């Protein structure tokens, strides 16, 4: 379980995240929604240690994360799939997957092979450079690369960015299934509110760095004003 309490982050004079609090539970997906500049990415980067907060805390169970290094946070079981996917284009598919599991001692081959089973398109391209993959395949690879390390927490930053609707749907379904199967704690940052709400249990809506609403995904989906003003979803 990830508990964020009164978290604040500033870039110079600009406060990107203001007193944000929420909790994400195992086996569930927590969607973090909001427009560009709402502080979603900064929030994830703070949880994974890439950005230092100016106040507040992030806990994994009862471990405080904000004082730990990025590498140690990763090794405590938190996997962050960054925006823009972060696949290493110069590496082959297999090298990307190997890299993901390196900090896990022992034989990681079974974990890598299970990812090829989960994402068959990757299996047929394992020797190819990641630069040859399509957008959807890159997102699969980024996700698989995080999963080979068998994390307990998954931080996903805009996985649907630039993907076709059908590809996004498949990806969301995979994330949902994995969350249930492996009891993952997933924090899903999305601009695509509809896709995220369809698989999330809980939703946190950010506006200019502050939490506007923190409620169940159904309640957020049902709130017309919220959809209109903060999520930019068209009325149906």
């Amino acid at each position, binding site marked *: 379980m990830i508990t964020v309490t009164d978290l604040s982050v500033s870039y110079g004079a600009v406060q990107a995240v203001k007193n944000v609090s929420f909790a994400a539970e195992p086996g569930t997906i927590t969607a973090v929604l909001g427009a560009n500049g709402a502080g979603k990415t900064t929030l994830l980067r703070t949880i*994974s240690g*890439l950005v230092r907060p100016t106040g507040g805390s992030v806990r994994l169970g009862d471990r405080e994360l904000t004082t730990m290094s*990025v*590498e140690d946070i*990763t*090794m405590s079981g938190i*996997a*962050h799939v*960054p925006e*823009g*996917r*972060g696949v*290493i*284009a*110069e*590496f082959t598919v297999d*090298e990307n997957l*190997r*890299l*993901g599991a*390196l*900090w896990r001692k022992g034989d990681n081959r079974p974990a890598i092979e299970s990812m090829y089973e989960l994402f068959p398109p990757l299996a047929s391209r394992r020797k190819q*450079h990641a*630069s040859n993959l399509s*957008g959807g395949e*890159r997102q699969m690879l980024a996700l698989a*690369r*995080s999963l080979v*390390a068998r994390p307990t927490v998954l931080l996903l930053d805009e996985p649907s960015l*630039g993907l076709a609707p059908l590809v996004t749907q498949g990806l969301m379904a995979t994330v949902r299934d994995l969350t249930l199967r492996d009891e993952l704690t997933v924090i899903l940052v999305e601009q695509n509110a509809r896709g995220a709400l369809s698989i999330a249990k809980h939703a946190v809506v950010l506006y200019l760095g502050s939490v506007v609403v923190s409620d169940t995904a159904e309640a957020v989906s049902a709130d017309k004003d919220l959809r209109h003003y903060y999520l930019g979803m068209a009325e149906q």
Partner: protein
Amino acid sequence: MSFLSSQFMSATFDGIANGMIYALIALALVLVWQATHVLNFAQGAMAMFSTFIAFTFLEHGVGYWPALLIAIIFGFLVGGAAERLLIRPTRGKPEINPVVVMVGFLTVIEAIAAMIWGPNSRTYPSPFSQIGFTVGGTTINFSPYDLYTVITVGLIAVGIYALFRYTNLGLKMRASAFAPEVARLLGVRVSRMLTFGWMIAGAIGAVAGVLYAAHNNAGVYPTNLDLVFVFGFIAAAIGGLESPSGAIIGGLIIGLVGDYVSSYYSSGLAPIAVVVVLIIVLMIRPQGIFARPAARRV
């Protein structure tokens, strides 16, 4: 007088042996560049100092091979120390800062070497004969020492290739070079990898320094690797700075061009010819001959 002992082949043999030493300096520069995107202007001076350390042990009766090992270890440690103490504080600062720091380091190392060992050239012993092999009754301009040089550089090149291609350490080093932030998110201790890149470069530089010191009795003195560094740098630039194999081939090209010009015209023209080659390469392929086009990052 056979073809093997002709002026052309003599220059070719000498060019290969010289080129291999430039290639090692180029390889060290490439490793440092890959790790931290810094041009280590002190690479030659660090190699010179490592050679002097080995020389001091030799003077006290230590054998050639243990002394070489000491130089390698010293180069390894100096490389790591330079990254930690000199380069790390310049991170996030303007790109000119590490350049100025390393040029300053170069001056300081050469001055300290002159204070300890004096400005005069010292003879460095050679473990193998410097007299050319005899092939079919004629002596060629390629000695057992040259063969030792070529084999040593070849082994180092293969070792570096294998490190990057087949080991987990190499995978982590490459990830740290290509995508430091992603590597950290995957649990790679990137700052250690960068230091390690500098350490390997320092060790390779030390080998180059020791090889050069006995090569054609060049000797070791505080500025003895200045020109070698410039040639090595040009070799690395021709090879594309990112490519270890490009560094080796660049070194060979520079060695051959330098020796042909020395042999057929005048040795004073060789540095100019080498710079002309650099200018031509940069005009035709500014990214270097062996650089792959920048991979798309989508």
